[in-house]
């Protein structure tokens, strides 16, 4: 079999795709909600293709940080920041960078599942459609692939055209994950994705997260210590808007460097 130049170019492009790593580096990041400071001087290097968990007591700024990585906080009036967040070495605050293209590279799954009131199929391909992909076969392929990798395909393959609102809570959350990974982002942000789910659905999603790290950098906010311990490679502990400690999960859960971290994970506060 001979390879045409077009094929070779395609292959090179595919290689470049897989080579794009999805590392996040946060540098001296301060964040303010209309004057009130929510994050203080955060600096962390989130490695590519690993699961990083953000833990900490309620109100400590985990969601705020997460929502800054895909600039979801832009929707809020009166915000400001200092410092920088870079993805693969490029700042996300580059004025030439379209925020929509940033969000295509940094997907997000929310605490409450939020499928659109459309069919399952249209939910999954929504991100592709808004990027201008309308070719039926491409969409079909992407839909199946995304549903398979979010472990939902077998459950919904016969009802793709039915409303997504008819799915169970856990299925809806996996659908939202499928919707996020269908656009092939580099990074998937998850804000307490399992907090509204029962243990079985949670187990499925955790399995899924372990799968996802093969292809994506995953940053997950969780209140569940076991969950952080089970499925993350690295864990960051936040307290009152400050990053206290960020290290390998094993280390955080066995020999934490800071007293506050130990108190928190052993349940002495929070």
């Amino acid at each position: 079999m001979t390879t045409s130049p077009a094929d070779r170019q395609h292959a090179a492009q595919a290689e470049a795709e897989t080579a794009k790593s999805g590392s996040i580096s946060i540098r001296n990041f301060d964040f303010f909600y209309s004057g009130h400071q929510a994050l203080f001087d955060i600096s962390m290097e989130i490695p590519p293709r690993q699961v990083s968990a953000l833990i900490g007591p309620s109100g400590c700024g985990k969601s705020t940080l997460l929502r800054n990585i895909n600039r979801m906080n832009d929707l809020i009036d009166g915000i400001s920041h200092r410092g920088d967040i870079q993805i693969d070495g490029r700042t996300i605050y580059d004025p030439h960078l379209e925020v929509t293209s940033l969000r295509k590279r940094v997907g997000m799954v929310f605490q409450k599942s939020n499928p659109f009131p459309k069919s399952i199929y249209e939910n999954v391909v929504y991100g592709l459609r808004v990027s201008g992909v309308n070719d039926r076969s491409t969409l079909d392929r992407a839909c199946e692939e995304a549903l398979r990798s979010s472990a939902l395909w077998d459950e919904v393959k016969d009802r793709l055209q039915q409303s997504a609102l008819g799915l169970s809570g856990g299925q809806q959350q996996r659908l939202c994950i499928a919707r996020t990974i269908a656009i092939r982002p580099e990074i998937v942000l998850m804000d307490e994705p399992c907090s509204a789910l029962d243990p079985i659905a949670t187990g499925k999603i955790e399995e899924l997260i372990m799968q996802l790290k093969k292809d994506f950098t995953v940053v997950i906010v969780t209140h569940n210590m076991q969950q952080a311990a089970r499925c993350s490679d690295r864990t960051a502990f936040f307290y009152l808007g400050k990053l206290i400690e960020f290290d390998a999960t094993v280390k955080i859960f066995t020999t934490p460097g800071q007293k506050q971290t130990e108190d928190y994970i052993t349940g002495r506060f929070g």
Partner: protein
Amino acid sequence: MATKLDKPLRVAGEPWVWCTAMGLTLGMVMVVLLLGLIAWNGLSVFWPKRVDLVTLRAGSQAGIGGSRTLAGELVKRQERTAPTERGTYEIQLFVGNRDAYDFSFKYLDEADIESRATPPELMVIERMEGGDAIGTPVRLMVKGESDLAADAGAFLSRLRAQVEVAQARRAAILRVEKHEIGAINRDLEDANRALRNPSADRVRIDGEVAKLQQRYAELADQARQLRAAQADDQLILRLATGEERRIALGQIVDYAWPNQLSTWQRITASFHAGWNFLSENPREANTEGGIFPAIFGTFVMTLLMSVAVVPFGVVAAIYLREYAKQGTWVRMVRIAVNNLAGVPSIVFGVFGLGFFVYVVGGSIDSLFYPEYGSTPVFGTGGVLWASATMALMTVPVVIVATEEAIAAVPRGAREGSLACGASKWQTIRSIILPASAPGILTGLILAMARGAGEVAPLMLVGVVKLAPTLPVDSLWKATDVVPFVHLDQKFMHLGFHIYDLGFQSPDSEAAKPMVFATTLFLIVLVLVLNLGAILIRERLRRRYALGAF
């Protein structure tokens, strides 16, 4: 702690519950009574009433022209305002025959009445002019045949056949006079306008004009002959007062012997009358005939208004809610919009006349219709400007409803879409607008309810008592018939029709039943339009149920 259980009534709030429930009940009862009254009075118009033959006591002066007998439909029986020693009740009869008596209603003291009967031979004839005739048929005079007495066996079938002939002829007259001659008139006007153009081929146009004028003369002659033929056959009717009248069969719209009808026949007759009322053109200064042009005009106006008001309102609401920077300025705009909803409707009428008709319409005329000279085309009231005025009047309702619907879209839906890389506009188009569609339709329903019932502003911008054409109809050209939308034409409206019938007609007593029937159909039309919108809204609700967020 246990004292909480036996709280006094006042604290439990029960009296307030009763109060609110009573308020609601009172409101409901009033609405039901009002609708019931309108429905009853409106529908009973179509029910064929019996005709009473009343014989007065000897010496009574109450009869018509000194006669002791009179016939008519009983309208009502009431207590006299000033009772006399002879009795307290009086009755009102609809005696018809306006051409003979100069009036069609007559009050009689019950004390004057010797007897009342309902003889089967009494006939009611609905005529093109002069209202109903009531009397006993005597004979039928068909041109070229010998007279046929009413008790002859062939009388009924001959009458029916000749009335049908006359009705067909009436349709032919309408076609010739209104459509064919109308088409020639239009062509003549076109030719005249063409002549004003200095570079026109005068010889050719003059030739065409001559040809058209010749054709016109032929048609006019044809119409004249047809009209004359309408009076060929006649029915002799003896009124209860004894006098005999001739009725040309060409005048007869419908006839019946109401005292002979069975209940079933009465029911079919009233359906027939109701259908005629809905589907026919009005006659005799709107006091007779149907209301079709008014129904159609109201319908077209409301539809055009909806088509105009929804895009405007939705676009404005999207801007206010999604794009404008929230602050004092936007708050002020919002207050202004809300206040706009409270501006008296006549003010909108004046604005519509000044802005849409004179400014916009006038400019359109001077730009596109210079050859019409001083005759306005769009520079005068018409269904387009009426709809635009009503749209302007109701746009605040749609803006407010849409804004609320947009604000009610859960944040999760919006963020989910943005997180997929959708732009703001994509999010609005594919997530926010579909989810707020039911709310937008609620706004439209309110707008339609207000717009369809409004009369005052319409009187300034295009409603007329009698419109020459429907807003949408077929235009008769010399060669063919084409569908035609006259957005510039004046139109009829049910609300205005009610006003005109009830308060502008010379005989308001005679028009009263028509007013009730028209009111009933105005309410039904608004209801039908609203039901349509509600059905669409329910379908959308089911489709975009956002319960899962």
